[in-house]
């Protein structure tokens, strides 16, 4: 057989992989490919879900230094310690159960890693400085979702007002009548409240009701003093 291919240029490694990937299988049956693909899918999806759940527990959340202060506050609340021993851990309140919303929350949590690295709230002073802003973000999210994460455990439909305190029963009935959501009254249920929180929460409600974007409290996490300047100069240096 003539070896005319000697004069032709051999395709590169990536091109050969690409061609092989899109070529029909000459040795494997359709059934084999379907079963193998199904098993590979189970392994991949199981592994992906397992990895996601590994980032969805209290140990993982508090492994960051910046989480120590709000975790300490949480340990003094009823969601950590109570007569029944039932607990709500970090992801129970901060990570939605529904797949779509959970993935979104995980993507958005990447900013927490960034701020952990640059130390935005690594001291008590910095934490207090940013507390209202951080709380505002959570309140806005909960208001917009109708306190979805609270309702994973709490539901008006199953509350027995006759065994609640009179004030609680009255306020819960009022909340049903006026269509309020959990976070409307229960800010600071698991973490300390910053000064001026009521005004801030009111401004969130007004902005949401008017359909405008929420203008959050001005101590934005994007304004991080020296860290911002360092980041800006780094980026400028890259682009110049």
């Amino acid at each position: 057989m003539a070896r005319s291919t000697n004069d032709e240029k051999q395709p590169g490694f990536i091109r050969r992989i690409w061609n092989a990937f899109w070529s029909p299988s000459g040795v494997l049956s359709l059934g084999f490919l379907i079963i193998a693909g199904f098993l590979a899918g189970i392994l991949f999806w199981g592994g992906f879900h397992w990895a996601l759940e590994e980032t969805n527990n209290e140990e993982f959340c508090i492994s960051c230094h910046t989480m120590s202060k709000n975790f300490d506050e949480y340990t003094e609340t009823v969601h950590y310690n109570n007569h029944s021993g039932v607990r709500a851990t970090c992801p129970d309140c901060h990570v939605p159960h529904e797949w779509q919303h959970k993935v979104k929350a995980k993507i958005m949590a990447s900013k927490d890693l960034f701020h952990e690295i640059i130390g935005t709230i690594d001291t008590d002073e910095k934490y207090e400085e940013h507390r209202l802003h951080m709380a505002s973000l959570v309140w806005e999210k909960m208001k917009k979702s109708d306190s979805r994460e609270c309702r994973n455990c709490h539901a008006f439909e199953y509350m027995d007002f006759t065994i609640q305190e009179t004030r609680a029963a009255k306020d819960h009935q009022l909340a049903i009548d006026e269509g309020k959501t959990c976070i409307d009254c229960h800010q600071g249920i698991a973490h300390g409240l910053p000064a001026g929180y009521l005004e801030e929460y009111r401004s969130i409600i007004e902005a949401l009701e008017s359909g405008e974007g929420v203008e959050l409290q001005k101590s934005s996490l994007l304004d991080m003093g020296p860290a911002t300047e360092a980041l800006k100069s780094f980026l400028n240096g890259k682009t110049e």
Partner: protein
Amino acid sequence: MLNMLDILGTIAGNVLSLPGILGLALGMMTRNLLVAAILGGLVGVAEPFIFAGFDASKVETIDLVIAIAVGVVAGCIGRAIRVKGATV
């Protein structure tokens, strides 16, 4: 920055949810680009309503738009896979 993360998170959620996966699968069932895009788009329309418990008032416009866009793109990619990887 937060709004950008919000949008990226919504896109990622849709890629790994019904519009991305079912849209891709439906796109792989046809060689017609328009049909693939429409099938993906329909999944994109349905998905936010399913997650909102079929309560239209809980569906945000931006979520709906992103879901449809992801569905359409996934459908088109599925169609491209069909054309490239199948002889029928």
